[in-house]
């Protein structure tokens, strides 16, 4: 199963002890996650981590850029959420990257992997992407 983890998965994953064994699913790094990693990289080691993860994903063809279809889908999903008036404009802006991540995963036939499945529930209600918890991923 292809999975596109969110940024917090990458951080939590970096701190996990190694669990030897079969692959944990086909993990893909999305460009939105890369943006969030770089935005948080304040120290030299944090910047080196972001660079090394990017380099590994690029060399192994595990880097996914949102194609035009994902941008359009994410805009449509945000419009539906705005129309339903469940979220303020500020909340919608805060959701933007998660919606682009979800749309990118959907376009590439992948699932979103996140510790915050509930946060993605509203997105999954308007964009039929599969959302999985790290504990449930293979």
């Amino acid at each position, binding site marked *: 199963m292809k999975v596109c983890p969110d940024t917090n998965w990458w951080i939590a994953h970096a701190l996990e002890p190694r669990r030897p064994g079969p*692959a944990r699913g086909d993990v893909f790094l999305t460009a939105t996650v890369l943006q969030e990693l770089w935005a948080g990289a304040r120290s030299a080691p944090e910047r080196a981590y972001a660079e090394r993860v990017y380099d*590994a994903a690029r060399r192994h063809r595990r880097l996914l850029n949102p194609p035009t279809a994902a941008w359009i889908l994410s805009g449509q999903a945000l419009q539906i959420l705005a129309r339903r008036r469940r979220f303020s404009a500020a909340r919608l802006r805060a959701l933007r990257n998660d919606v682009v991540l979800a749309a990118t995963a959907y376009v590439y036939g992948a699932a979103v992997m996140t510790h915050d499945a509930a946060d993605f529930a509203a997105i999954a209600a308007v964009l039929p992407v599969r959302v999985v918890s790290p504990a449930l991923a293979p």
Partner: protein
Amino acid sequence: MGRKVRKTLNIDAEKLKKAREYLGLDTETEVIDRLLDDCDFERELDAINREFAPYMKNFRSPLTRRPPPHLRRRRK
């Protein structure tokens, strides 16, 4: 990327056929190459994590809506 060599493998032919069909690949060599690449990516990620884990304990992106799980637990 290492050099390509010819290898003789004792392998489950049916399993290999199923994997080739599932992955949508043309050849059995591509199947093995793809799975080895998956393994190599995971190995490389583990190496990166081991190297950088001490520096990532307080990492938080200002663009995420919540802190990473380990920072949430610490605050409770």
